[in-house]
């Protein structure tokens, strides 16, 4: 192994570690909200129970399946690029993007329904609710909204990866960008794995 080869190997290792460090900050960004949720839930158990019944568990479950499948397709795209099958990798990332789109459309209908019922922070209906329910819906919009923002950012990142594969900048010998894009996408999935039971399942 020549010294250039060695330094490139170190680069890809440190590049991935940098991504993980960033993911740690993301974990604590959402972690803070999870702690607020946990404390408020123990303080307003009754209100949280009542408010959680408003959420559509079916849409939540559908989006869980969508994200889990998309997590697999993005993991498979990494396998494909490692096996020098660029077209397969592009195809799999494209499927991931479509699934991200499905997730966002579901979110649109879900939020749209809440807005129709005037269940959004600061609305006339919301002001009449007990304090705990206001907290629940506030956290619901904050957590799912922040998560949806991550879905959009992840989608943009994976789109960039597709173009880099097409232009040959990401290939079998150098796929750090795709690896980091995939890690980011898995994080989006990880956060949802906790959001789904906490918001939609437990009532």
């Amino acid at each position, binding site marked *: 192994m020549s010294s250039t080869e060695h330094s490139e*190997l170190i680069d890809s290792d440190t590049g991935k570690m940098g991504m*993980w460090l960033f993911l740690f900050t993301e974990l604590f960004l959402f972690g803070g909200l999870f*702690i607020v949720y946990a404390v408020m839930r123990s303080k307003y158990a009754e209100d949280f129970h009542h408010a959680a019944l408003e959420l559509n568990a079916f849409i939540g479950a559908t989006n869980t399946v969508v994200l*889990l*499948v998309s997590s697999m397709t993005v993991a498979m795209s990494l396998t494909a690029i490692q096996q020098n099958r660029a077209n397969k990798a592009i195809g799999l990332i494209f499927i991931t993007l479509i699934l991200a789109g499905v997730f966002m459309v579901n979110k649109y209908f879900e939020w749209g329904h809440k807005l129709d019922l005037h269940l959004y922070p600061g609305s006339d209906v919301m002001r009449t609710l007990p304090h705990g329910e206001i907290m629940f819906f506030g956290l619901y919009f904050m957590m799912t909204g922040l998560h949806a923002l991550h879905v959009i950012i992840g989608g943009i990142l994976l789109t960039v990866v597709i173009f880099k594969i097409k232009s040959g900048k990401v290939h079998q010998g150098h796929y750090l960008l795709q690896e980091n894009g995939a890690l980011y996408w898995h994080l989006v999935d*990880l956060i949802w794995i*906790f959001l*789904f039971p906490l918001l939609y399942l*437990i009532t």
Partner: protein
Amino acid sequence: MKNQENHISSDSTNWTVLLILLILTTISILAIKIHLGSFTVALALIIASVKVTIVLTYFMHLKFENTLLRLMVGGVFLLFAIVIAITFIDYYFR
């Protein structure tokens, strides 16, 4: 041209991992319908933790990463658990 040296997960491994994750999701949804009292929340969180561990290990390739990175990830999750524990100790005993 140097190649990045990484473990390659086969497609069949990825399919298996997805299948296990979907089964766990189904269990989680069905378990909610059984009334277990305060254990319901605990069970949902335990299943979610198992799912997260599987995603970290296989999809995020932690199983095949170097020890330093694995220790870092383990350490951060431990730190997060401590933060939650301290928050609740503070909340219940103030």
